[in-house]
Structures are given as C-alpha cells and as structure tokens.
C-alpha cells in the first residue's frame, strides 16, 4: 500500500447524501482507477483516469462521478448515495497501464 492512500477508510452515510472518497498517490503514476468490490461480483471498474483531467467510464459508472485536477489526487463522488452503493471501494494506480497497485480500500455503508 506504500505510495497510495485512501480517505476515509470507513464511512457510514444516509441515503440521499453526497459522498466523496479521496485517493492520493505519491508515485507520480499516470493512471488511476476506482473499483468497487462486492461479494459475488468480484472487482468492477467504476471510472479511471489516464492523466490530469482525462477520465473515462468503467463498467459500473452510473451514480458516480470523478475528478482529477492534480496527478496525485483522484476523487470519487457519489452525488446522492443509495443503499446499492454500499461496498468496499478500492483505488489503484499504474505507471504504464499494466501492473496496478492498490490502496487499502474504503468501506462505505449507506443506510
């Protein structure tokens, strides 16, 4: 997990509230990713970034938005949280788009 941190690590929020998760890296890697991990679904890509202000959608992007204004930070926002967004969220980084290095995860519970 060295070089990549996620905050907060745990969060409980109510349905309908906005939530922002932060991923911070010190590796100066070009690519950054947000995944969610749920039992029975494995790891699914939400959004990813291939450079500052360059982002694209993943497999499960509905209800999520992202922003990357600096190389080191990649923010994931749930505009209006729903119970279906209860999950463990992982950020990952990659230098060349091959091997990915993962953060420790954020456990989000939407009540």
């Amino acid at each position: 997990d060295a070089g990549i941190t996620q905050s907060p690590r745990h969060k409980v929020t109510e349905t309908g509230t906005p939530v922002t998760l932060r991923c911070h890296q010190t590796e100066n890697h070009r690519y950054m990713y947000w995944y969610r991990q749920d039992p029975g679904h494995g790891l699914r890509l939400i959004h990813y970034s291939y450079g500052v202000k360059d982002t694209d959608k993943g497999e499960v992007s509905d209800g999520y938005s992202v922003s990357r204004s600096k190389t080191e930070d990649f923010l994931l926002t749930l505009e209006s949280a729903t119970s279906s967004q209860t999950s463990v969220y992982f950020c990952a980084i990659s230098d060349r788009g091959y091997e990915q290095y993962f953060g420790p995860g954020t456990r989000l519970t939407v009540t």
Partner: protein
Amino acid sequence: SQQGEEDPQALSIQEGENATMNCSYKTSINNLQWYRQNSGRGLVHLILIRSNEREKHSGRLRVTLDTSKKSSSLLITASRAADTASYFCATDDSQGGKLIFGQGTELSVKP
C-alpha cells in the same frame, strides 16, 4: 462484464501441498495478470504474463498461458499458511490501461 473466470471458486489444502488455480477468458489479450488479496486488504500484483509467453516463474509461483484455449493457470508450490488469500486473474482491455478482473479463487492453506 467479467472476462476472466477463476476455477475453483474455493480451494482448501494442507501446508506443503501445491495449489493450482485456473482462469479462463473470452477475448484476445495482450497480457494476463494474477493478483492476491488478503482478507481486508487491497490487491497485490503477483505476476504478469504476455500473450507471446507460455510460462513464467516468480519464486514459488508458476504461471502458464494457453492463448489457443484462452486459459491460464497459477501454481503455488509448497504452500504455506501465509498463502491463504483470494487470488484473481485480470486481463487487459483492448483500449489499453484497463483491467477486467475475474471473481477470484479463495485459497485456504491449513497448517
């Protein structure tokens, strides 16, 4: 949609035995990767094998790739209790920079 599918979903062995996990995928790839995830932690990259390679070793890990059968296997030799984890295969997306993960094999190594 999941590209890689691991088999078996769960595997329980004794310390010292070998563990073999298999991964099948659907479309052509540039490379295939294996990751390990310990309980409550982020994924850790283990090994990458390119589409023009058939076998690759890293310590006690041996990975094979058969592109004609669209399958890969991960062999862990002389397993240890510390190898207990979930193991995921991941294939690259044709657009580059993205990975598609399977649902994983849960390995339990009993001392």
